[in-house]
């Protein structure tokens, strides 16, 4: 095992998949000569050349659409969209074409496409550059949306996404790129993940905290803090937003009796709304308190640090919500021994 960053895991996996399958090619803005805005594709142009590592003009709608067309003929394009905010320019191609072609033509052509793109706020990039709109894609039947939170998951899930015959939106996060984790020395030893499976990344008995991407890591951090106080929090990392693993979520809440959802997007109609509805339908009789959601304040995110910090969910706000939820259960908590 080696300790690598999330960034390195992505890079090494892309490389391994390109070596494995000649039909895998990369497209995106600044991924070649510039080696990627966030350096995920470092060295790949040098190694594979411009036929397989394609710098595109600033034309999200055009190159995503072109990738969809290429996928229809059997290529496996992996497209990088610099941040998820810019995917909005390609929304039509993703929603009206990538997600529809298999069904609309009676299953005659599939679209084995991967769109890699980071979300995330907190870097003072302002309202248009700090959004978390993965919901737009998770809403669409025909698309798959995965959101790994560790280097190992990122590698396993990227492999699965590239080998999958359907369009997959692969959500990364700016705040995760430098985070570290274990990965087998030989990248070929990484087994492709099963898309659509959540994981209990930390077992616990008192409360379930459900998160994905960056917030799954924040949830783990909060669970550590709570453990020091003798509170046992279980963390469910969704890992996949569509398909959604409702069984794992519900089974956890049936064990703990209460839940808080941690999400980086907005609350109203957000990912957490779907999770809370799922818990209500599947674990109503087990619930000791209402399900709470911790999400971004519902504003176009301001640039000023004071306002940005107040608007974004954090370990602190998650901790507050967890404590309030535990209090609402009316359970007498045993003091830490």
């Amino acid at each position, binding site marked *: 095992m080696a300790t690598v960053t999330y960034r390195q895991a992505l890079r090494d996996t892309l490389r391994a998949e390109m070596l494995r399958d000649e039909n895998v090619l990369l497209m995106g803005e600044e991924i070649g*000569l*510039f080696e990627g805005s966030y350096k995920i594709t470092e060295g790949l142009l040098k190694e594979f050349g411009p036929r397989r590592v394609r710098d595109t003009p600033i034309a999200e709608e055009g190159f995503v659409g072109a990738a969809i067309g290429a996928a229809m003929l059997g290529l496996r394009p992996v497209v990088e969209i610099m941040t998820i905010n*810019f995917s909005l320019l390609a929304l039509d191609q993703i929603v009206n074409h990538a997600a529809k072609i298999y069904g609309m033509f009676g299953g005659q052509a599939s679209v084995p496409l991967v769109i890699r793109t980071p979300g995330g706020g907190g*870097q003072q990039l302002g309202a*248009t550059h700090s959004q978390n709109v993965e919901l737009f894609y998770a809403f669409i039947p025909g698309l798959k949306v995965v959101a790994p939170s560790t280097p190992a998951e990122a590698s396993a899930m990227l492999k699965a996404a590239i080998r999958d015959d359907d369009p997959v939106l692969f959500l990364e996060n700016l705040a995760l790129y430098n985070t570290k984790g274990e990965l087998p020395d030989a990248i070929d030893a990484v087994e492709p993940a099963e898309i659509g499976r959540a994981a209990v990344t930390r077992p616990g008995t008192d409360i379930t905290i459900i998160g994905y991407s960056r917030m799954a890591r924040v949830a783990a951090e909060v669970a550590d803090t709570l453990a020091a106080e003798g509170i046992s929090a279980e963390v469910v990392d969704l890992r996949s937003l569509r398909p959604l693993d409702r069984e794992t979520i519900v089974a956890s809440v049936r064990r703990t009796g209460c839940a808080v959802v941690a999400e980086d997007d907005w*609350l109203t109609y957000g990912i957490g709304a779907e999770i809370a509805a799922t818990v209500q339908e599947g674990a109503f009789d087990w619930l000791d308190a209402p399900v709470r959601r911790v999400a971004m304040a519902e504003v176009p995110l301001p*640039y000023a640090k004071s306002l940005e910090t107040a608007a974004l969910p954090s370990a602190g706000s998650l901790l507050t919500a967890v404590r309030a939820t535990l209090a609402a259960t009316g359970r007498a908590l045993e003091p830490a021994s």
Partner: protein
Amino acid sequence: MAETPTRSAARSAGEAAPARARRSRGPRTPRPGPGLPQPPDTAGAEAPDTAVPAAPDTAGTLVGFYRQMLLVRRFEERAARAYTEAKIGGYCHLNLGEEATVVGLMAALRPTDYLFTNYREHGYALAKGIGADRVMAELYGRSTGVSKGWGGSMHLFDAEARLLGGYGIVGGQVPLAAGAALAVSYKGGDDVVMCQMGDGTTAIGGFHEALNIAALWDLPAVFVVVNNGLGMGTAVERSAAEPELWKRGAAYRMASARVDGTDVVAVRDAARLAVERARSESRPYLLEAVSPRLKGHSVVDPARYRSKEEKDALKDADPVARTARRLADAGILSPEDRDRIDAEVTAEVEAAAAFADASPQPDVSTLFDYTYATPVAGEQRRLPADPVFRS
């Protein structure tokens, strides 16, 4: 050629508008029409001859241009320093190398003309007449900034100066500018809307959609492509199948030209022609200003993708040094004058940084003040830790 119903409808609606200040238009003539500039058909061609007779520039005007260019230069250098000191966050894109283009373009506008830009817009804000203090305060994210600290470096806005925004989504401003020009023309005004963008932006679908609409509807808009040779790290030749970007106007029968963006007077003249044509004839124009980007894409980009030769060549292209030399050669800028101007603009920029630093960050109680212009019932005014229902 037969006119489409849409176009005749738009045209007659325009002619029927009351108190229309513009000359009414005759039948459309193929571009370029008589009296219009002949766009050069080779790359790097000179600026078009100005058809607008202009009085020769006085020494005062020329030195004034130099002063504004130097203000932009010193402002950007100060901003870069503040960024490395973490006074400025997010992304910070500078106009270093584009000073002649910035100042020349703004000199062609009347104060009431409107301006849309991309996120590389500090210089435009200054040259449009906004105080350096309020621009710097915005970069610092302070409530005294032009956008009250909500926008930051990429999103400067000032209604009074008619700067209708810097925009961070590449190409976002182009259709907006066409729409603003529609509003001006619809109301019968004679202001012009200028829309600045980068070379890389001409690959975006919205650019083409907006230019087509502006040409079809005869909108008083001047689209300016600042060709600094690069979109982030991608050279124009690697992102544009037709790298002579001004030629894209032909696809919309839009008058267009290319000008040397390091020559402030040439830029001003070319822009004046475009602006006055938009004003008097209500016809859009596409102007390309070729102007180097002296540093990285943003403050944090070391621009390793550029060769040493390329970086060396940039020094000769520096428009500020070039203008100083020209004015000195013409005997209207002595070394003492130059030093005095430098000291003055440097002091102005330092004062702006001090003002910004002393200004407060917006108060958290204002977080929900600008989500909607009209109060909404049931608006979610909750912070992340707050429950949906309090009770």
